[in-house]
């Protein structure tokens, strides 16, 4: 009994009722609401991917009907992009950590934050309804005039779902921007901001500026389908390529929504497990903003063979090479951060190192597809599929898992079994490469994407890829088991199990409802992993 009394009140144990969760305006609880919902969508989208890989194990269409196959890859794309990747790190770890990292009680607009989650759920409900009503076969890209005039599926339900979820990400972005500007603790200058916060700040800018264009574009599709307005239909004066410009004006920056937060996570993890300051803090923060801004000017590289002018193609190619430079700086700086560090290899670090390797491959093959003449050949083939999965899955999902493992003790107050964590990280790395590396070769050989059946000579590489999928699936299921196990049986973590330097580690785990008992005052840079120890470390605790 005495133990019970001595247990501190924290954000988790203050109230266990379901109502307290569904009406919470605590950013930490909202992070959990998102975590549970995006996990469900992750496995839903993953199930679609599993069926796709099963079908592609043989050249003939023998597992599912062609129509089913087309609906599966569309569902996989829509769910994974808008209901997992876009909200993944910002809405879970970002929501949980940004106020903690800047020494604030909550985000600037806690009610708006809860509204964001409800919008996400409503958008998700539309998407589930769309899937139950038969789905769509447009691909996640909804290209016109197929989507507006030809497709038979639930296109309107699908775009409404995406539009609503889009507003959720606009509001999250808005919340983050205002929070970071106005709510930093005394002494936390911009130059002392953790890179995770910088990364989410850069992401928030893209969310706020690009997502409205997506909403407008998809609304135009719905209007064209329902009222026959000639926006994209050439028969009534429209232009189908206009859709591609509008769509990629959002969706290319959205690729950076899906990678910048991962870069932030990895910067936190590598500094902590190398016990070293980040190499080139200013350059790292500047690179995040540069990627976010230049990222708005490269959308035309999706249209090299789609009917944009040759000159536009050349300019967009040049800009695409430009946006790769800051990404290159980041990779080199992560490597340089390890130099003269004191490196250890716990689970989060394995994910972070895996991220750097896979992101490098994804980035370099991005250079390959930015090279116009080569893109003409590999565009719309499996080369592109492999390339963006190296960024989205090899990059963002690895970073998300790394972050989840790094901050799990903070979020739950418990430690998971590190051995199982490492096994899962290595399984995911191996399974990922087995699944996606053969697809580079397939694409170069000419296998087009979105093919239900394919010529016999592509089978060997497809079988390799399909063989990787179950390994990857096991890798993703393992954390579900041992993380849940740790909630009840994991050892108590204490405030700072990794001996990390961020403000979030200066408060108990799990944190109290209002994050800090006393207003923190920041007196030093974010990554004061000095070797030897600095005086300021002692002063701080």
């Amino acid at each position, binding site marked *: 009994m005495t133990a019970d009394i001595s247990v501190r009140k924290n954000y988790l144990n203050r109230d266990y009722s379901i109502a307290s969760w569904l009406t919470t305006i605590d950013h930490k609880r909202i992070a959990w609401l998102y975590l549970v919902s995006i996990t469900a969508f992750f496995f839903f989208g993953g199930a679609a991917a599993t069926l796709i890989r099963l079908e592609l194990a043989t050249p*003939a269409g023998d597992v599912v009907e062609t*129509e089913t196959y*087309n609906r599966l890859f569309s569902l996989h794309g829509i769910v994974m992009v808008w209901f997992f990747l876009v909200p993944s790190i910002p809405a879970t770890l970002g929501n949980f950590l940004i106020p903690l990292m800047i020494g604030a009680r909550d985000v600037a607009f806690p009610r708006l934050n809860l509204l964001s989650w409800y919008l996400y759920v409503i958008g998700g409900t539309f998407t589930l309804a769309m899937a139950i009503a038969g789905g769509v*076969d447009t*691909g996640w890209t909804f*290209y016109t*005039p*197929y989507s507006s005039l030809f497709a038979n599926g639930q296109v309107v339900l699908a775009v409404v779902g995406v539009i609503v979820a889009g507003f959720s990400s606009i509001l999250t972005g808005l919340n983050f921007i205002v929070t970071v500007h106005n709510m930093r603790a005394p002494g936390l200058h911009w130059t002392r901001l953790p890179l995770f916060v910088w990364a989410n700040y850069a992401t928030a800018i893209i969310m706020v500026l690009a997502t409205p264009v997506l909403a407008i574009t998809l609304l135009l599709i719905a209007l064209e389908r329902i009222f026959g307005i000639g926006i994209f239909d*050439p028969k009534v004066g429209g232009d*189908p390529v206009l859709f591609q410009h509008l769509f990629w004006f959002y969706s290319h920056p959205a690729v950076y929504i899906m990678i910048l937060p991962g870069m932030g996570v990895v910067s936190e993890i590598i500094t902590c497990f*190398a016990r070293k300051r980040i190499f080139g803090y200013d350059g790292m923060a500047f690179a995040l903003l540069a990627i976010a801004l230049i990222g708005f000017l490269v959308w035309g590289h999706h249209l*090299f*063979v*789609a*009917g944009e002018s*040759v000159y536009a193609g*050349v300019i967009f*190619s*040049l800009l695409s*090479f430009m946006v*790769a*430079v800051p990404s*290159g*700086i980041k*990779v*080199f700086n992560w490597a340089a951060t*390890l*130099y*003269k*560090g*004191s*490196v*250890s*290899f716990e689970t989060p670090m394995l994910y972070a190192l895996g991220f*750097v390797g896979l992101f490098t*491959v994804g980035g*370099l*093959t991005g*250079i*390959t597809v930015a*090279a*116009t*003449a*080569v893109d*003409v*050949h590999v*565009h*719309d083939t499996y080369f592109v599929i492999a390339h963006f999965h190296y960024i989205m899955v090899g990059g963002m999902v690895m970073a998300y898992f790394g972050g989840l493992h790094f901050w799990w003790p903070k979020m739950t107050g418990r430690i998971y079994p590190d051995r199982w964590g490492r096994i899962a990280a290595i399984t995911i790395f191996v399974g990922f490469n087995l699944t996606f590396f053969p697809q580079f070769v397939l694409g*170069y*050989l*000419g296998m*087009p*994407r979105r*093919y239900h*059946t*394919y*010529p*016999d*000579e592509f089978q060997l590489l497809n079988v390799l890829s399909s063989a990787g999928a179950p390994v990857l699936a096991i890798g993703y299921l393992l954390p579900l088991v041992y993380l849940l196990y740790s909630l009840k049986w994991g050892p108590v973590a204490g405030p700072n199990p990794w001996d990390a330097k961020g403000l979030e580690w200066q408060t108990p785990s799990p944190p109290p409802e209002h994050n800090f008992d006393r207003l923190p005052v920041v007196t030093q840079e974010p990554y004061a992993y000095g*070797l030897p120890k600095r005086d300021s470390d002692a002063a701080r605790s």
Partner: protein
Amino acid sequence: MAGMDAVSDTPLLPQASTLAERVDALFFTLVGVDVVMVLVLSGLIVGFAVHYRRGARVNRTTDAPETKTEIVWSLGLLAVFLAIFVWAAHLYVEEASPPNNALEIHAIGKQWMWKFQHQNGRREINELHVPLGVPVKVVLATQDVIHSFFVPAFRVKQDLVPGRFRTVWFTPSRIGRYHLFCAEYCGLDHSRMRGRVIVMEPAEYEAWLADVSAEPSPAQGEKLFSSLGCIACHGAGSKVAAPPLAGIFGKPVPLKGGRTVIADETYIRDSILTPEKQVVAGYEPIMPSFAGRVNESDLTRLIAYIKSLSGEEGRP
């Protein structure tokens, strides 16, 4: 279908156009750059991680000049990237400008087939015959959605955009039969919208072009109609309940399930290859598939015959 498309006499990805070698030269240079970069970076990461692992007794005092190092590798990357950009853009601009003397062939994409028409009017479906060593310009149009003309062996690809004419050009440099794919998702049978490009000696091409007997004629179609046994069910006086074919071409056909389709080339083609998919209202789905039993040329002949039953000219 997959079996019909197999191209067994060629390597996995032949270089069959003058462009192919040059794209490959750039591509494999890029692969080389990628491999070097991956080796250098993973070497640095693994090397540092192992050398400076916790507990190792190594010198950890550092005063690395951060900004200077960053500037050096940014400029290095920029230089490499600009070189790749210029090389690729040079090729891309050339790909966009066909020579004036190029042989012009017209192509139409529709869900889910390719139709070509040569300069003397000869037409073909899902096959494209081209002469070796002669620049060929294909003018692309689409009847419905966006498609994409993709011949991997030539390293060319160009989308077909509704409401516009697009062009793609190449100079075939190797005799053989190569895949033609639709690369832009175009609906249900996107993955079956495949064809073949056949590169022939110029003299052979001229002979092929002039050979009107190879043109699908209603008479040849009629022969196939009886030899394949179509006549047993669709012929006049047949006891089997099969829809009559006289006069149907170009007319709306009510389907089981309430939909209606126009009996055009695609519909007839589909009805021969996948009869169970679009069954005429009021009939049982008893027709067997002829996929694998009739090739593309036979299909065009059968279509020509069925067209002639509606008093149309016997050309697809």
